[in-house]
């Protein structure tokens, strides 16, 4: 296993652009549609997600490789405890979100009021759990550094997608959208075009 900077850059670019979690992996669609009305909110949400995703990615990796596998080994089968994985993952993410919420409330009160209900909703943001599951599923992320870069890149990719979307939506507000397409429908169509644009990244880093 090489640990060159090139490998890490490859992982980062791959998850942030080519296999963008939102536009190619369909993870985190709910906040992508819900919180992408204004650029500053979208950007703040993206920062939160990046932060929570990186920490959760690392912690869930540590739980799998530091607790579940060794204890399983002691029981005679490394996969003996894997049925606990999902329950453990969701608990880690829920507590991480709680942590970030307290932090933001203390140090960035305006941001906290702006988010309203969305911050606790990061718990049910499938991008976070999805990133943890992807790290767990792919053999190439079996070392901690790769897993960390993957989680961080995934968060940056989410931030990129949601901020781009917010930029487009700020302009759509001034255009004459047919009544039945207003709201989520036009957002999905725009997302489709964005996803089409992101297809252009295919091939980079592979």
């Amino acid at each position: 296993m090489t640990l060159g900077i090139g490998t890490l850059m490859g992982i980062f670019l791959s998850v942030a652009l080519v296999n963008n979690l939102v536009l190619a992996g369909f993870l985190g669609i709910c906040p992508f549609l819900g919180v992408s009305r204004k650029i500053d909110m979208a950007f703040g949400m993206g920062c939160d997600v990046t932060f929570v995703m990186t920490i959760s990615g690392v912690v869930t990796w540590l739980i799998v490789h530091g607790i579940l596998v060794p204890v399983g080994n002691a029981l005679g089968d490394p996969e003996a405890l894997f049925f606990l994985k999902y329950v453990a993952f969701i608990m880690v993410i829920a507590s991480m979100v709680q942590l970030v919420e307290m932090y933001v409330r203390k140090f960035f009160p305006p941001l906290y009021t702006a988010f309203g209900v969305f911050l606790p909703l990061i718990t049910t943001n499938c991008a976070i759990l999805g990133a943890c599951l992807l790290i767990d599923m792919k053999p190439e992320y079996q070392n901690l550094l790769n897993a960390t870069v993957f989680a961080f890149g995934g968060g940056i990719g989410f931030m990129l997608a949601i901020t781009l979307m917010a930029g487009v939506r700020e302009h759509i507000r001034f255009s004459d959208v047919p009544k039945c397409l207003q709201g989520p429908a036009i957002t999905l169509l725009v997302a489709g075009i964005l996803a089409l644009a992101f297809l252009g990244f295919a091939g980079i880093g592979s």
Partner: protein
Amino acid sequence: MADGKVSDFTQFREGVVDNNPVLVQLLGMCPALAVSNTLENAIVMGGAATFVVVMSNLVTSLLRHQIKPHVRILIFTLTISTFVTIADLFLRAHLFDVSRKLGPFVPLIIVNCMIISRAEVVAIRNGLKRSLADAFGIGVGFTLALSVVGVIREILGSGTLLNYPVTPAAFEPHLWIIMVLPPGAFLTLGVIIGIVNYVRQRDRKGGAA
């Protein structure tokens, strides 16, 4: 909706039509986009989600007098992740190919807001019968919505339906490859939601006149 006069069947139909989780409430969008590239995936995913929402509503409804309000979300999440683990292990044992294609989206049912919202809105304050009726409605509605997207994407994108070729030979699916790729999912669902909105707005106008 919580009105005691509403029959259980109405509650069921509400989940399928008026309150369809994907097309009207816009919940559970991630799987609706991700695993709707073939009808087979859509049906298996819908079945797994239906199982989870039914079991989670069942348990929540039975425990509704014991659950303290401030820990309810935790209990919901733990209940749901338990049943998702069961569904995941079952799929891996009996439908391995489909389960591999669905990838992380079976475990991701845990964070599907559709399921937790049913526990929160219906199961925690209603009896067993009503909660089950609601869960089946939501499950069937979810499966139907996924299947509609799945049928469109599979026919246009691969020229097949449930892996049988259905389009005339002159139709060249590789020109429509975009439908099985991610953008096709966004575009298809966007258009479907647009149509649903159009019909609903027309109905509402008709009702008011």
